[in-house]
């Protein structure tokens, strides 16, 4: 295993994160704060509690998940798309590195950034919802890390397959964000009328958000084991796709 290469890429990517700290960390924190302010204001006319949880606390896991999904995808896809775009990918392709090492480094760096981001948003949330309590902190971290890893891997695939910046933005903006909003980030799907409740069970985001919320409050829209199974399954599928991409050189080599 070429660990020097893994370290070199990982360090390179983390440098990029710290160099662009403003975009990387500050803007998601600001937008999360905005969600709290806006939803807090709307709350006056809406439910003050969901499933016995204060609404301000209820939306925290969903908000974190929303950021993890979009930021993981965006960071990982950009990390591999950019070298393709400016042509520096030649060096990666000519280096004595395997796909496992490339993925460990790129996905590892993107996931690290997402975990940091999730924790920062969580800290921000405590400002807006001071009574927020986390019932299963360790499992919460497990969900945080697994979600960051799988969505970074997913983003890596998108970055490899994308031909331009529009394509990179397409999936996070037009698929993942709506799915998250419809996946119970801001409400409980058990409160939805039929047939929407059934339809929601086909939305992958439901399982992720529900599981993450369970680690906070011990309650979720679906059993937590389904959530865990889902996240592992998603991770496995992404791994298979990415190993196929590297084996064939699809869209990377000509």
């Amino acid at each position, binding site marked *: 295993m070429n660990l020097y290469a893994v370290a070199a890429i990982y360090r390179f990517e983390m440098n990029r994160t710290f160099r662009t700290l403003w975009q990387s960390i500050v803007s998601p924190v600001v937008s999360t704060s905005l969600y709290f302010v806006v939803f807090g204001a709307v709350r006056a006319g809406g439910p003050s509690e969901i499933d016995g949880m204060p609404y301000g606390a209820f939306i925290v896991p969903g908000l974190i998940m929303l950021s993890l999904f979009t930021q993981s995808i965006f960071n990982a896809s950009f990390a591999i798309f950019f070298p393709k775009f400016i042509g520096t990918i030649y060096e990666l392709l000519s*280096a004595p590195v395997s796909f496992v090492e490339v993925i460990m480094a790129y996905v590892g760096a993107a996931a690290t950034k997402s975990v940091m981001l999730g924790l920062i948003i969580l800290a921000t949330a405590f400002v807006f919802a001071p009574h927020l309590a986390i019932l299963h902190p360790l499992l919460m971290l497990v969900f945080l890390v697994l979600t960051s890893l799988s969505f970074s891997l997913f983003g890596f695939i998108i970055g490899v397959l994308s031909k331009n910046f529009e394509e990179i933005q397409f999936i996070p903006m037009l698929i993942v964000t709506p799915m998250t909003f419809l996946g119970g980030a801001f409400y409980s799907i058990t409160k939805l009328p039929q047939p929407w409740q059934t339809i929601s069970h086909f939305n992958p985001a439901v399982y992720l958000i529900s599981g993450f919320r369970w680690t906070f409050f011990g309650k979720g829209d679906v059993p937590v084991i389904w959530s865990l199974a889902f996240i592992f399954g998603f991770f496995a599928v992404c791994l298979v796709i990415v190993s196929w991409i590297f084996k064939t050189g699809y869209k990377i080599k000509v």
Partner: protein
Amino acid sequence: MASIISVKGLTKTYDTGVEALKPVDLEVEKGEILALLGPNGAGKTTLIAIICGIVNPSGGKVTVDGYDIIDDYRKTRAMIGLVPQELATEAFETVWSVASFSRGLFGKAPNPAHIEKVLKSLSLWDKRKDKIMTLSGGMKRRVLIAKALSHEPRILFLDEPTAGVDVELRKDMWQVVRELRDDGVTIILTTHYIEEAEEMADRVAVINKGEIILIEDKDVLMRKLGRKQLVLHLQKPLKSIPAALKPWHLALSEDGLTLTFLFDPEGERAGAAPLLRKLDELKIAFDDISTSQKSLEDIFVGLVSDRT
């Protein structure tokens, strides 16, 4: 000489249907400087890109120091440094950090002393803390060379290293290349400038339309190519070359008024002075005589157009 790179029956057809490499065979000798000379689109970059692992071959086999470039890619790639044709660099990183990055990427433990040596040899030391985007084009090319040398490769590929490069860098670069060769590094450079091949190479391979049409020691090639031409303008047209002039392998122009003779420095053909005596003997009068050095360029164009 032992060969360090062995290319056998290598082919490449791109998805677009372009046949960039017909079956190519090539042996690169350990420690030599080999120039791959050929016009644009000849397949030079494709050949290099396959050996380095950037492009998938369509067929054939390449070994580097006995290792297959696909089965043993870690071993072969660790030995190779590549300076690509395109100026592709990061923008926000510093010179020092990208050179160190490359060293790590190629599996070498950090060695600041080596990076320092490389940067100094390329006059980049003063710029080590500068962001790459602030550098000029020539400086960026130096950075690419520094990256390629950062992991102490035993084989260095330079793909059109002097395209758009100033004289200063050219001099620096050739100095670095000579030092590397003295250290036993094998160097393969591509160019479509004949002077460059002349100046630097031990051997020259001419590649055109995906085929290597000639590979020769530079000195031998130069002697062959450096042949002088003797052109005789006759007073009266000849219908054909008299049998007595056979030993000189003359060429007669269509109008029968010009005889062309190629001096042969190898001495395999009869010389010029006896030819002139013979012409006198045969009473073939000429009113003008001129010599010209046939340049590499002419020969090259001749070689290439023969194949079209």
